[in-house]
């Protein structure tokens, strides 16, 4: 062992030499060590005696950027749900009620809960918020009577939903309450026993998910907007306003454009054809935009035909966002346009975009092409006639492809 080599080195000095050396080394190092520890007896201890014997109260010692409990100032919250999408562990839960903007306000928040017990204080939700409504306060004292109390409810009463804030154009500073005020008031409720939660069975009896009064009828509004868009087809700015009404109007920038105006203007100018880029709008704005696009192309507003798939409650409780896998669910499908198929009316590039848009977008390669891009190029440019190859898209894509390319219903599989 390597150690014997050191050992033999010592033997050379002689056992007595090692004996004395050991004793001397021990004495010297004890002397050093003991003098250090005794010197600490005569110094001021560093610890401060939280919570009551502190020289200065603990809240002032915390730096400004400290990430404590979250706080949402509902007055400046635009209900764009950017924070909900940014949170890696889905701690923020927002329920939105849609309205048509006249009788009922366009966006109302029925529920804005943050499960502080599960939050990991990473700060990713604060960054995308356009108006800085959601911030980290410097509160950290989280002792609570019961785990379920740890949810901060920023919409106090579910019967009075909060109207979403419409930030004035170009405003960059937003009036907000004193940071920590709202959270401190909510924290006071933590010492109370949690509300008696009804058992799962009772809730089932309460007919979960019945459509609520005052909700928006997506299909009807879609047709209304499409008709108005047809009239102002040439006047681009007016057309842009109509298209923007179909969007959530939260300027959150998730569509890749700086704000809703940018996205709607791109559609109005014909530069962009996709209808599902408005994340906060979700399935509703996707359906309305599709109706408008189809109407602009065919020049005919689709009537409330028999084939309309009733989409159950619009804006009900289920998550109204596009499901995360990116595969668009079977959304409300407008009835078949009667005009000539888009294949004749659109240029090759526009048609390629619409065809690509109709596919599932999973690049799975089941259609023997490398990815969806290849398959749509094949259909548009290389005259590929087999429109049934998109397996993940399934029936939904098949119907669309036939309708776009041939304007007819696909033969029964």
């Amino acid at each position, binding site marked *: 062992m390597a150690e014997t080599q050191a050992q033999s080195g010592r033997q050379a000095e002689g056992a007595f030499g090692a004996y004395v050396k050991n004793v001397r080394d021990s004495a010297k190092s004890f002397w050093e*060590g*003991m*003098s250090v*520890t005794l010197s600490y*007896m005569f*110094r*001021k*201890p560093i*610890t401060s005696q939280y919570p009551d014997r502190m020289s200065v109260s603990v809240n002032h010692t915390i730096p400004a950027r400290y990430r404590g409990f979250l706080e949402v100032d509902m007055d400046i919250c635009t209900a764009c749900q950017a924070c909900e999408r940014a949170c890696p562990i889905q701690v923020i839960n927002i329920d939105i009620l849609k309205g048509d903007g006249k009788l009922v306000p366009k966006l109302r928040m029925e529920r804005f809960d943050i499960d502080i017990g599960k939050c990991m204080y990473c700060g990713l939700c604060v960054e995308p918020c356009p108006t800085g409504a959601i911030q980290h306060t410097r509160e950290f004292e989280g002792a609570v009577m019961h785990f379920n109390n740890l949810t901060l409810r920023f919409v106090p009463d579910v019967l009075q939903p909060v109207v979403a804030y419409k930030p004035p154009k170009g405003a960059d500073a937003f009036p907000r309450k004193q940071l920590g005020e709202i959270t401190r008031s909510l924290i006071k409720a933590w010492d109370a026993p949690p509300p008696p939660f009804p058992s799962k069975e009772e809730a089932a009896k309460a007919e979960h998910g019945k459509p609520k009064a005052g909700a928006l009828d997506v299909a009807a509004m879609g047709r209304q907007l499409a008709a108005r868009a047809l009239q102002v087809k040439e006047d681009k700015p007016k057309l842009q306003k109509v298209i923007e009404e179909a969007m959530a109007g939260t300027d959150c920038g998730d569509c890749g454009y700086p704000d809703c105006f940018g996205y709607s203007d791109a559609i109005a100018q014909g530069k962009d054809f996709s209808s599902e880029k408005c994340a906060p709008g979700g399935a509703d704005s996707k359906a309305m935009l599709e109706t408008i696009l189809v109407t602009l192309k065919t020049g005919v507003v689709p009537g409330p035909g028999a084939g309309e798939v009733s989409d159950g409650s619009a804006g009900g409780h289920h998550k109204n966002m596009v499901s995360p896998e990116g595969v668009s669910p079977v959304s409300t499908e407008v009835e078949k346009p009667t005009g000539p198929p888009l294949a004749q009316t659109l240029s090759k590039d526009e048609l390629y975009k619409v065809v690509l848009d109709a596919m599932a977008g999973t690049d799975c390669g089941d259609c023997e092409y490398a990815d969806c891009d290849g398959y749509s190029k094949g259909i548009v440019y290389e005259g590929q006639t087999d429109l049934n190859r998109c397996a993940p898209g399934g029936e939904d894509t098949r119907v669309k492809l036939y309708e776009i390319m041939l304007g007819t219903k696909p033969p029964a599989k």
Partner: protein
Amino acid sequence: MQGFLDNLIRNAGHDPATWPYTQFVYLAGMAVAALIVINFAAIASGIFSWAERRVAARIQSRVGPNRVGPAGFLQWIADAVKLLLKEDLVPDEADQFLFRIAPYFMMVGFCCVFVTLPFSHSLIVADMNIGVFYIIAVTALIVVGIIMSGWSSNSKWSLFGAIRSAAQIISYEIPGGMALMIPVMLAGTMSTQGIIRAQGGLPWQWFLFDNPAAFAAFFIYFTSALAEGNRTPFDLPEAESELVSGYNTEYSGMRFSYFFLVEWGNLWVMSALAVTMFLGGWQIPGLSPERFDALTGGTAVVAEIGSLLIFALKTLFFVFVVMWLRWTLPRIRIDQMMSMCWKYLVPASFAGVLFVAVWMLIVNAAPWLGLAMRFTLTAVGALTIAMFALRVLKNIRDTGDKFDFTSNW
């Protein structure tokens, strides 16, 4: 104490030798003395546990318990009451009988030592003429208690702790015992009071500075006393980082408080013995024992209290040193502990005894040499203490802190 009881009986008008009930009086006297001594041991260990937590905290730059009572002084009462109220469970596979009786063995071993430990000029339970021998013999009982507790807890870790502690205490009794032979040889008697009387009040009259071997013997005794008390750097039996808490892991509640009491009480025993043997015990500087005996009335009481205070102060200083050592040094490994005992301490203590035997002959022949040695050794002692104090102040300044003993208690 027996003389004291005899006077009592004579004042009451009986002759102790013939009076039939003297034995009962002796028994009552012993009971009272035992009560006093055990209570003193319990309270002392409680206070030392609080003191150790405060000293440890201050050394580690934190504050320590300061909420219960003034400066946290009543903390140990709170701990004791908590320990008494806690449920002391017995693991079901444990050896029931041995598990329950082990703490009492340790308690007996620990309390018997107080019989011959002096407290002041006349305050001693029984000044036996074989005092030192008795002390060394009785401490062996603690080992039995430890092994019993370790074995009966039926846990591998406790067994480790017990075997380690057995090896340690037994092997360190030999150098400890030999080191204590030196003051016995110098004083010519084994009775603790006698040894104190053989020294003087002033430092150069202590056995510590009597000759280099006695000086070394003090450190040898102190190291082996540390090992016998399972104190750092020898706290292998209850090494927190390896065996969680060694032999007393499975104990809780009242039984655990006995282990607790013995461990901290041992501090007093260790330091008191060191002070008695090497540092002149309760001797008041400038007052020789003979004149001390001759004192009567008020001055006797004052002198008595004085001697008590001096003894207590010296002992408390060494208690502080033991605590201070605990929070500075790491723990040595079991094989190093054994090699240190048998290769370093035992040979040194034997050599010391031979040296003192020769030294006493020389001093008889040339007494001035003895005096010269005493003065030089005292000077050396004083010099090291002064250098150490300067070194401590330098440490404080080195890291840019200030000398501050008063704030943030």
